[in-house]
């Protein structure tokens, strides 16, 4: 890699010099600036080699394995698929100096062959890279000249790189959505979709062996979504008023100096890692709520929807306040002036003119905060527990969709069971909900922006 960078720099200077030379005493007669010629040369020297390296990195192992499998002794090839896989894994481990779970002469030999093969292929690739670099350099250098349209070629390459990058982002998203969809479909082929969406009981333990009893597993997602919405609701009860009022204070009442200090402090809240909020909830808020509940004669546990909701509310205050602050600031000063000129006080102006004018944008900010709260996991794992209670009592432990996805996928499980697949179905529903919320809120915010711009 480092070598490629050096080559690139050299090529750039060389191309530039050659372009200058070809123009003689009149650089302005060149079609493109000398820098473009340099860039062109650099691209041709480095890009093909780089692509080869990338391809080798991606598919090299695959080829190597294929090759090796063909060289395996016949008796091993006759073994069942899993055992062949195991043999190969051991051979690879040995080849790179690791330890294998068993050793045999066949294995030793295979390992040696593998090591050889990989050394040879490395040499081949390095050789090819060097050849490509030199070839690309010479080819491009041959084309440089006074009338060569280096700029257009460079622009085309830059365009290509940009397209590839945005393509990667879009394709990844598409891939994620597709895998969510296909895995969810597999889940729904085993479990009725209606049972999943409207079932009231969540206990995803399925029988691993036919002789186990009482482990039929039930996948009613309602308790999870109820838990999610309960916690989100509590969080919004905290975050909406506090965030909104601090936004109003910041944008309408605070002096510029105060604002310069307070706003960043609020935004620091957004930078606290959620796991920190999590143990804050578990170690401080949770016990406090339990004591408080006990003194008034209610029973409560340390893990409760209330403590998770409260802490999550604190976490999303900066979202609400910072977004609302922007929206309130976008309300034209002329409206405030109009209200003051009517003899309205500042509070009357805020309540009757500024707030209604900013309302659509504030709604958008709240919706964004909600979708953030729905997706939050860490705080809930720590503060609300993992038991899928269907309850509206905020003092009881509940669990949320995201927490269940985590527990479903982190346990020791075979990948194809309904239990793991249900995580994809949960993820899909959650994705649809937050996507819907985001679309609605962005649209609301945008509509509001248009009105005053």
């Amino acid at each position, binding site marked *: 890699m480092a070598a490629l960078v050096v080559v690139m720099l050299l090529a750039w200077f060389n191309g530039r010099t050659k372009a200058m030379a070809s123009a003689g005493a009149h650089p302005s007669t060149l079609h493109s600036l000398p820098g473009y010629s340099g860039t062109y040369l650099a691209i041709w020297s480095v890009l093909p080699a780089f692509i080869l390296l990338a391809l080798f990195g991606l598919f090299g192992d695959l080829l190597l394995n294929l090759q090796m499998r063909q060289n395996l002794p016949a008796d091993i090839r006759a073994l069942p698929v899993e055992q062949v896989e195991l043999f190969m894994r051991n051979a690879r481990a040995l080849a790179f100096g690791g330890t294998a779970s068993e050793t045999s002469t066949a294995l030793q030999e295979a390992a040696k062959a593998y090591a050889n093969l990989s050394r040879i292929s490395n040499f081949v690739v390095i050789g090819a890279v060097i050849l490509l670099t030199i070839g690309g350099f010479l080819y491009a250098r041959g084309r440089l000249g006074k009338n060569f349209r280096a700029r257009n070629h460079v622009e085309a390459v830059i365009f290509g790189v940009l397209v590839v990058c945005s393509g990667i982002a879009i394709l990844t998203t598409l891939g994620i959505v597709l895998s969510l969809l296909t895995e969810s479909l597999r889940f729904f082929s085993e479990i009725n979709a209606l049972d999943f969406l409207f079932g009231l009981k969540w206990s995803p333990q399925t029988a691993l062996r036919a002789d186990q009893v009482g482990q039929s597993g039930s996948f009613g997602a309602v308790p999870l979504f109820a838990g999610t919405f309960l916690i989100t609701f509590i969080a919004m009860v905290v975050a909406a008023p506090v965030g909104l009022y601090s936004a109003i204070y910041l944008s309408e009442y605070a*002096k510029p100096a105060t604002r310069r200090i307070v706003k960043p402090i609020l935004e620091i809240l957004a930078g606290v890692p959620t796991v920190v909020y999590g143990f804050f909830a578990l170690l401080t808020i949770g016990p406090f709520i339990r004591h408080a509940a006990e003194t008034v004669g209610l029973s409560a546990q340390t893990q409760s929807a209330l403590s998770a909701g409260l802490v999550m509310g604190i976490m999303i205050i900066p979202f609400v306040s910072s977004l609302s602050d922007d929206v309130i600031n976008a309300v*034209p000063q*002329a*409206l*405030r*002036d*109009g*209200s*003051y*000129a*009517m*003899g*309205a*006080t500042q509070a*009357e102006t805020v309540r*009757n*003119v500024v707030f*209604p*004018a900013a309302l659509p944008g504030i709604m958008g900010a709240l919706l964004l905060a909600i979708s953030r709260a729905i997706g939050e996991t860490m705080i809930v794992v720590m503060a609300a527990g993992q038991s899928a209670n269907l309850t509206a009592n905020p003092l009881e432990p509940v669990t949320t969709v995201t927490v269940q996805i985590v527990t479903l996928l982190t346990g020791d499980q075979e990948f194809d069971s309904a239990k793991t697949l249900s995580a994809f179905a949960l993820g899909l529903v959650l994705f649809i909900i937050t996507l819907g919320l985001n679309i609605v809120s962005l649209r609301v915010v945008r509509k509001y922006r248009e*009105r005053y711009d």
Partner: protein
Amino acid sequence: MDTSVSPATQTTDTPAVQQAPKVQARKVNVFYGNKQALFDVNLDIPDRSVTSFIGPSGCGKSTFLRCINRMNDTIDICRVEGDILLDGKDVYARDVDPVILRASVGMVFQKPNPFPKSIFDNVAYGPRIHGLASNPEELSEIVETSLRRAGLWTEVADRLDEPGTGLSGGQQQRLVIARAIAVRPEVILMDEPCSALDPIATARIEELIDDLRNNYCIIMVTHSMAQAARVSQHTAFFHLGKLVEAGPTEQIFTNPNDKRTQDYITGRFG
């Protein structure tokens, strides 16, 4: 420099009764931070007539206008010295609440700024916050009279619950005037009320101003000499933060005392 509009020189279409000036400025100096925007302004403004402020951009017309209803209070760096008397009472006295002052000194801005509310609620805004109506019927009555006075009633009577922002620019400006009238002010300040409007809408507003003159003291900033000549009875000319000359409009336009006034009016600088 110490000029004042004396009631005796009023034009013939206002009754030549001796009356005290509605608004008086005494040695008014205004500063934005360290920068002085107005220098020793002394001016008397009569009631029930239109007084226009003219002068090149940045000479302090708006600043002076905003002193009268203390809108400058909303600008942190703005400081006002001297006295501004409304009916002989200093509006900058400690015991004067700017909120109450602004109910009797209404203001109309350059760009129409209806609130994002219905037409009805726009006009009802002031009466509501000042508690001028004791029941809904009374409120509707105030809204109707204000809209009638602003010459907008016939155009909006059947769509009072539509948003005020949906009206045309000229209608919006009349809506804003109706909104100002609804709190029964004595003085109405207008800062270039027609500069965002087309000629026809402008003519409507000028007509309206001429009507309103019978009941209010109207003070208007304008960049149009023709407009000042058409609608105002008194004119004050500002230049570089100083009040250069003030008097009956006719005299200012036909026979100004100061060379600078003459130059400005004849378009030699601006």
